[in-house]
C-alpha cells in the first residue's frame, strides 16, 4: 500500500468524496441496518471501480480444518456433473447443486505436513523449512482492496487456539479471535454515548502515541545503517498503517452498529466442544455477512489431542488421524468428520435461507472449505480435499484434476478474487483462473 505524499489529506477523512450510496437498506434474516460508508475510503480502493462497489456485495468465507479429511469419504469417483456422492458429500446432499468439489488439487511447493496449515490461504512454499516467511493470505489481499467498504475490513477467527489463516503483506499472522462473546460484542453491541466517547478518546490517545513513536522512528532511521533502516522503515510503515486503521475505526465508532435479532452467544470454553464451537462461529459469520459488517472472514478450526465430545469417539482427533489403518480409529474419525460436514450443511442452509435483494446470501457468499493435508496419516500435502460453495459460480460438478500431477489450488483463489470484483490475474502461485469453473 502506498501513501499519498500529502499527510493532511490522509489524516482527514472528511474532505473526500465518494461514490457509494449513502444509505443502502439491507434486510434479511432479522437484520435491518443502515450501511454506512466512509468518505475516506473510496479513493483508496484502487482495484475496485466505484461501479462494482455499487453492484452486489460479494463475500468470502474461508474455512480450514487442520487435521485432514478422510479422502475415501470425500472425493467422488466420476468427474463432472452427475457424480455419485460420497458419504461426506451426501451429508451436503441438498446443496450439491450449489457447490463444486475439487480433486487433484494442491498448493504448489506447500509441504511440511502440519506446517502447511499456515499456508492454506497464502500458498507460500515450504513452510516447514528454517527461515520460512509467509506471504499475504487470500483474505488480506482482498481486504487491502475491498476492506474499507465495511466496518471490519476482514475478520480472522479460530476454533480453539489463537492462530488464524490470515497473514498480512509482511507475512505476519493476524491472531485469531476465538471468543464468541467478544466477536458478537464488536459486531453488534452498541455502546452508550459515554462509552462511545470514551472509546473514541482511547483511539485518539493511541493515535497520538503512534504519531510520537513514528516521529522517533524516523529520527532513529537517520542514525542507523542501511540494513537497520529497512527494518525501521517496516516498523514505521506499520505504525502508519495502524494509525490509518485507527482513523477508520474512529469513524465507524461514531456510526451506530447494526441492530439484529440475535442474542449474544455464550462462550464455549470446553475444548472438547469443537462441533458446537464451529456451529457458533458459522452463526456469527452469517450474521456478520447479513449485516454487511464485513465481507471477508477466515476460520481456522484447530483440532489436536483433545477428544471431541461426539458419541462414539473415545480419542483425540490428532491421534485418530494417525490411524495406521486401524478400522476403529477410521470409524471414529469418520464420526468426527460427519459431524463437521453436518455443520457445513447447516451453514449452507442458513446462508441460502437468508434472503437478499437479489437472491440469497449464499448467492453472494463464497464458502471455501478444505484442509491442508491430503492424508493426515502420512502427513502428505497433495490431493487436498477442498470444495467451494455459493458465491455466484456455476456449481454442481466435480472438477477432477490429475491426482499424480496436481492442479494449483491457487488458481481457484484467482477466480475467487475476480468474483469479489478485484481485477487481478494472479495470486501467490496462481497465474490463471481455475480451469472449468465458470461464473454464474
Amino acid at each position, binding site marked *: 500500500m502506498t501513501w499519498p505524499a500529502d499527510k493532511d489529506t490522509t489524516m482527514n477523512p472528511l474532505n473526500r468524496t465518494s461514490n457509494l450510496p449513502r444509505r443502502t437498506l439491507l434486510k434479511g434474516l432479522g437484520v435491518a441496518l443502515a450501511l454506512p460508508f466512509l468518505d475516506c475510503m473510496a479513493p483508496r480502493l484502487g482495484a475496485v471501480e466505484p461501479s462494482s462497489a455499487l453492484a452486489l456485495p460479494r463475500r468470502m468465507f474461508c474455512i480450514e480444518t487442520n487435521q485432514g479429511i478422510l479422502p475415501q469419504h470425500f472425493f467422488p469417483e466420476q468427474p463432472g456433473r452427475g457424480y455419485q456422492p460420497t458419504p461426506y458429500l451426501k451429508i451436503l446432499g441438498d446443496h450439491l447443486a450449489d457447490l463444486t468439489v475439487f480433486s487433484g488439487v494442491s498448493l504448489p*511447493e506447500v*509441504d511440511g505436513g*502440519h506446517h502447511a496449515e499456515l499456508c492454506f490461504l497464502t500458498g507460500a512454499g*515450504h513452510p516447514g*523449512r*528454517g*527461515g*520460512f*516467511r*509467509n506471504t499475504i493470505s487470500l483474505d488480506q489481499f482482498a481486504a487491502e482492496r475491498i476492506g474499507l467498504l465495511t466496518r471490519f475490513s476482514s475478520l480472522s477467527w479460530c476454533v480453539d487456539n*489463537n*492462530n488464524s489463516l490470515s497473514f*498480512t503483506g*509482511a*507475512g*505476519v*499472522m*493476524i*491472531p485469531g479471535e476465538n471468543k464468541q462473546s467478544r466477536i458478537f460484542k464488536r459486531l453488534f453491541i452498541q455502546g452508550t454515548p459515554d462509552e462511545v466517547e470514551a472509546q473514541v478518546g482511547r483511539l485518539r*490517545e*493511541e493515535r*497520538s*502515541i*503512534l504519531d*510520537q*513513536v513514528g*516521529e*522517533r*522512528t524516523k529520527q*532513529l532511521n537517520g542514525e*542507523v*545503517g*542501511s*540494513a*537497520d533502516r*529497512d*527494518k*525501521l522503515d*517496516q*516498523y514505521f510503515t*506499520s*505504525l502508519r*498503517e495502524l494509525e490509518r*486503521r485507527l482513523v477508520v475505526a474512529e469513524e465507524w465508532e461514531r456510526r451506530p452498529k447494526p441492530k439484529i435479532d440475535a442474542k449474544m452467544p455464550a462462550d464455549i470454553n470446553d*475444548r472438547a466442544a469443537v462441533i458446537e464451537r464451529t456451529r457458533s462461529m458459522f452463526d456469527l459469520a452469517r450474521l456478520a455477512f447479513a449485516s454487511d459488517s464485513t465481507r471477508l472472514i477466515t476460520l481456522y478450526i484447530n483440532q489436536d*489431542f483433545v477428544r471431541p465430545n461426539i458419541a462414539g469417539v*473415545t480419542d*483425540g482427533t*490428532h*491421534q485418530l488421524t*494417525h*490411524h*495406521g*489403518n*486401524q478400522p*476403529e480409529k477410521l470409524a471414529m474419525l469418520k464420526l468426527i468428520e460427519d459431524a463437521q460436514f453436518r455443520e457445513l450443511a447447516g451453514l449452507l442452509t442458513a446462508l441460502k435461507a437468508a434472503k437478499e435483494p437479489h437472491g440469497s446470501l449464499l448467492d453472494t457468499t463464497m464458502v471455501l472449505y478444505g484442509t491442508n493435508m491430503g*492424508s493426515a*496419516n*502420512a502427513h*502428505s500435502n497433495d490431493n487436498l480435499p477442498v470444495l467451494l460453495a455459493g458465491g455466484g459460480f456455476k456449481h454442481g460438478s466435480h472438477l477432477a484434476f490429475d491426482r499424480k500431477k496436481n492442479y494449483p489450488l491457487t488458481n481457484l483463489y484467482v477466480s475467487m478474487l475476480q468474483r469479489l470484483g478485484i481485477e487481478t490475474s494472479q495470486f501467490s502461485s496462481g497465474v490463471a483462473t481455475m480451469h472449468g469453473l465458470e461464473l454464474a
Partner: protein
Amino acid sequence: MVAATIIIRIGIVLSAWAAAQCAAGDDLIAKRIDNSCVECHDADVHKAGLRLDQLKPLAQDPAGLPMWTRIHDRVEAGEMPPKKKLGAEEARAFAEALAKELMATDRERQRTAGRVAARRLNRVEYENSLRDLFDLPTLEVKDILPPDPSSGGFDNVANVQDVSYVHIARYLEAADSALDAAMALRPKPVSKVDRQVFIENGRFFEEDDHHKPKPGGRSESRVVHEWMALLRQPNSAQSPWDLHDRMDEPGLYRFRIRCKGIAIDSPGTGDANDDKLLPPTVNHVASVQVKDGRFLHFFDVPAVAAVVEFTAPLLGNEHLVFYCATLDDRGQPGGSSPPAKVPYKGPGIAVEWMEMEGPLIEQWPPESHRRLFGDLPLVKWTKESGLREPEPSTIGTGLERRPWHPPGGPYMVESKHPAEDSERLLRAFMERAYRRPVEAGEVRRMQALAMEGVAQKRCFQDAMRIAYKAVLTSPDFLFFREAPGRLDGYALASRLSYFLWRSMPDDGLLAEAKSGALGRTEVLRSEVERMLNDPKAGRLVADFTSQWLDQCNIFATVPDRPLYPEYFCDNYLIDSMLGETTAYFSEMLKGDLGARQVISSDFAMLNERLAQLYGIKGVTGCAIRKVPLPAGSDRGGFLTQASILKVTANGLTTSPVKRGAWVLDHLLGTPPPPPPPDAGAIEPDTRGATTIREQLSKHRANPVCATCHAMIDPPGFALEAFDVMGADRQRYRSVGKGDEVTATVGVREVRYHLGMPIDCSGQLAGAAFNDINGLRTLLLADEPQIARNLARRLLTFATGAGISFADRSAVEGLLEATKDKRYGLRSLIHAVVESDQFRDK
C-alpha cells in the same frame, strides 16, 4: 598456476550469468562450466529452485550470499555438478575461487552493516523484559503477540523478523495489560486461608440424598476412617477431584496438604468400616494441577501421614484439581474403576485436608507500582478533585482481561507537581526500558504525551499511562540498538543479558556497561560466570533446549491407546521427560561437560518414573537427580532421552527416516536435504504385516533414494530399539498380527499384540553397527562435528543471526579455543561471548 587461470575465468563466468552477457564465447573453461550448470539451472529447468539467470554476482547483490554459499558447498562436496561434468581439479578450483569471493563479500557486509540487522525482541524476550522491568515474575503477555518465525533453528533471528501493523496493535494491548497489573491501583488484597477438609467440603464423593457424603459410595474415591482415599487420577469433565474454592486474586500462594500413600483392602461390603487402609506398597506422587493446564508442583506423598508444603503462583480464578500422578487413569475404557461393592485391593492416596493461603504479599503497594509512581500517594478519587474519573482497572491476564472496579475506589495517584513528577518517573522508567541512559529530549517527547493528558484533566495515572505505553511501543524498547563495528558497553550488556537471561540487563551489568569495564575480556568472563550462576539462567536452559531439541513439540502427539495402553494420560511422565532434558543441559553447563555428552554419558538425570521407563533400579521419588548408569546401559547423552524419542515419534509409530534426519540435523549439525517433491510418504500401518524397515527397503533398491537415505536411515535404525515414549523394546507392537500379550497396568489388565522383531543394525559411512551403543561409538569418532553443531547453534541463538560464510572460520575458532576443555558447554559459551561475532554488531 592452473588454479589462478581458472579463478580469473570463473570470475568472468560468474558475472556473466548475472549480467546475462556471457563473455565466455571463446573460452573453453567457461564453456565447460556453462555446460555444467546452466543446463539444469536456467529459466526453463530450475532444479532445486536455482536459476542462474536470475542470480546476480555477489558484488552487485550481497543478498545472493546464501544461494552462492549453497552453490559453493555443493560443488566443494563434489555433489555438483553431477556425472563428473567438471573434473575434480576444476571443481576444486571453482570452489576455492568462489570461497574467496564469498569471504570477501561477507566480511565487507559484516564490517559495514553488521551481522545482525535491527534485531527485535521476540515475544518471549518481550514478556521476560516486562517481567523484569516491572518486577512482576508471573506476568503473562506473550500470547497477546503474533507468533515469531524461526530461522537457523531459533525464533530470535533478526533477518526473518518482519513487522506488521498487527504487531503494533498488539504491543499497545500487551502494554495495557502489563500496566494494569503493574499499577495495582487498589488497597492491599486481603490474604486468606482456605482449608478444605476432603471428607467434608470437597467434591470428592458421591452425595446421598441429604447432601452428605456417601461412604464408599463412589468407585474412584471413598471415605475411610476420616480420610478421603483417592484411587484414580482425574481425567474427565466429571472429575470428582475438583477443588471447590477458587482464589480470585492472582499472586503467590502457600499450599499445605495433609496426606499419605496407602494401599486399600476392601472386602466390598459397601461399608467403609470394613475397608482397611494399609501402608503403601509404592512411593506415590501427586500434584495440584490447573485443570487441563500446568502442574503447580509435584511432590512425593509421605508413606506416613504428614503435611506437605509448597508455594506456587496462581493467575487468579483458576480451576484447580488434585492430581494423583502415580494412580491409574479413571478415563480408561473398559470400566476399570473398582466398583465400591466389589472386593478391591490396590494403591491409593489418602488426603485429609488441603489448605491454600494467599496471596502472600511482602510489600504494598508492590514494587511494580513504585517503579511507575515512586512514592506518590494513592487516594480515593472524588469529583471535587476536578479531574476526570479514572479509567476502570482490569483484572485477569492477557486477552482475558475485563474491566474491574476495586472496592472502595476508584483510586488515583495524586501528583501535586505533574510536570516534575512525570519527568522524574519517565526518566527512570525509560532508562530501565531502553537499557541505556536517555537524553533529555527523549524524555521530553514522552512527557509531552503525559502532560497532554494532564491538561485534559485526566488523573495522573491515566495521563502517565499514555506515556508509558508510548515507551513500550518505541523502537528504543523493542529493538536492539547496535551500531556497526564494536558494540558499545550498553549494546553489549543487552546482547549478553538477552543471551544468558533472555531478558534485559540488571543494574550490575549496566554499571559495568557505563564504566566501560564490560569491554575488557576478564570482566566479560566474570559477568558470564555471575549470570550463569543466577537463577535467571534457567530461562536460557529452558528456551535453548526447547528449541534446539524440539521440546516445544512434546505435546504434539500422544501415545496410541490400543498399542500403548500403559502410557494413557501419563502427563507426569511427560513432565518428567522435559525435566530430564533441561536438568541434563544444566548439568552439562555446571560441569562444563563437552560435546561428547550430547551423545553419551555415564550418568542420567532421573526421577523414579523415568528410571522405571528406562528399567533402572534404586531411584525413588519425583525429584530429578544425577544417577550413575549401569555398565552397558543403552542410555546416556541426549540421544536416547525419552523426550527426544518422543518428539521424533508420532505416538503411533516410529520412523527411522524421521528420527535419523532429526539426529543428523539437531545433534550432528549435518541436516539432510529436504525430500524431493515426488518422494511420497509412507502410510503408517499398525496391522503388523510388515515392518517400517521393510517398507523402506525400496530406498536401498532405488539408487536415487539410496544416496540420501544411506545417511539418513542408519541412526534411525539404531533408535528403533525405543518405542514412541522412549522405553526399550525388542518387538514392534501391532493391532493385528502377532502374539497377544496381557499385562497389568495399575490395577487393570491391558492387551496388545507383539509383532515383528526389531532390527537395529545398520551401516554408517561404511562401518557396521548392531545396536545403539554401536552407533554411539561411530558418532563419537567425530567429536569436533558434534561440538561444531553446538557452537553454531549457540552463536546463532546468542546473536540473533545465522551462521553465514564468514562466520565459519569464527566457529572453527570457537572449537580451537575449547579443544582443551573437550568442547565443554560452559567453555563454549565463554568462547562465544568473547568472539568478535558476539562483540561486534
